[in-house]
């Protein structure tokens, strides 16, 4: 009678402990109720570190120092937007990347003349969480065509914290 009411647990050291089978059965109800309220799926934080802008800086080809460039205009092709007009830049230019396509072309009209830059890339899209919307990751950034003296991609995954992705040498 006692044997059927007890569950014997043999420990690794050879000792045995007995737990009441009835207690074990009731415990499972308690555990089920308890864990039901603690087993909800955790949601992700709404944090995205990616960006759809490529940061570009001009350098002097002679001494590798930052260059100052007079812009007449800078605009992405196939877009009505004008990024720069009649201004002088000595720092970073943010080039918007079109996440719906595999490449984006830009027309540079500067003191050096008219230049074209075409950037190619891949995109991955994910839903961050149900409350957060989507995130587009732009990676494997590369230049497909350019009219500059020299160009170098220094970072090929577009992340907010990185402030230089492309170097153009004049």
């Amino acid at each position, binding site marked *: 009678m006692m044997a059927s009411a007890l569950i*014997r647990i*043999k420990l690794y050291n050879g000792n045995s402990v007995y737990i009441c089978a009835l207690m*074990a059965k009731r415990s*499972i109800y308690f555990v089920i109720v308890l864990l039901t309220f603690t087993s909800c799926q955790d949601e992700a934080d709404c944090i995205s570190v990616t960006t759809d802008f490529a940061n570009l800086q001009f350098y002097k080809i002679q001494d590798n120092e930052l260059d100052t460039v007079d812009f007449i205009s800078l605009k992405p092709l196939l877009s009505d937007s004008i990024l720069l007009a009649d201004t002088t830049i000595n720092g970073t230019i943010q080039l918007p990347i079109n*996440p*719906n396509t595999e490449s984006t072309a830009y027309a540079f009209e500067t003191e050096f003349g008219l230049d074209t830059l075409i950037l190619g890339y891949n995109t991955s899209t*994910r839903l961050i969480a149900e409350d957060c919307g*989507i995130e587009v990751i732009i990676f494997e950034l590369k230049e497909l065509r350019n009219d500059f003296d020299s160009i170098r991609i220094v970072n090929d995954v577009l992340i907010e914290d990185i402030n230089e992705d492309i170097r153009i040498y004049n």
Partner: protein
Amino acid sequence: MKIFGFIISASLFIANLSFGQAEIALHPDSVKGKFIPTGIRIGTEVINIGRTLSKSDLTEVTFTADVDFNRYYLNMEFGTYDRSFEDQVGSLYSVSGNYFRIGPDINFLKNDQDGNMLFFGFRYGWTSINDELTYMNTGAAFDNETRSIGNNGLSANWGEMVTGLRVKIWKMLWLGYTARFRFGSDNFEGSELIPHYVPGYGRADKTVSWGLNYWVMVRLPLRTPPKILFDK
């Protein structure tokens, strides 16, 4: 007086010996028949059914089956998952897939007459994934465009360490739960659409995750289990 005390002590000792001998269980020295299954336990996950009934955008059903080989069990689980929802910013995401998990369990309650289980085990998990995301791209310099991208026929696999309980409630009816530590799933970096949810695993961005399942099961006996002899 000393002789009288000796006789009483000897009598008690002999009585105790003979009484003790009656309780000593003799274990057979053969393992023949020991590993032949005594029953199949089949069941379903109850929380998934509750969530399916309470949420109009979700269908998830999971079944389990296990078979015993003495204190070792082979466990199989099969499930199907289908969900479509709209997020807070208007994107539509749908994911569906069928998954299975398979692996061994070891029961630490080896002398329990009902076969109640306190177990530890491993699982190999596999799932198919079909998902689709429809969203509006709102780039700064380009026209807004509604895009729809998806994965068709994607799959994922992972490993699990599991522990849990199986308790006989009444006749063939059993209840139990399984706690899982999942690891080793692909994170799908580089895919055009990175899945948000992997059926049977959970959120796709988690390299490790925890999970719990609560089971209602029925045990179908295959043969009469050998009587368990308790050690003295």
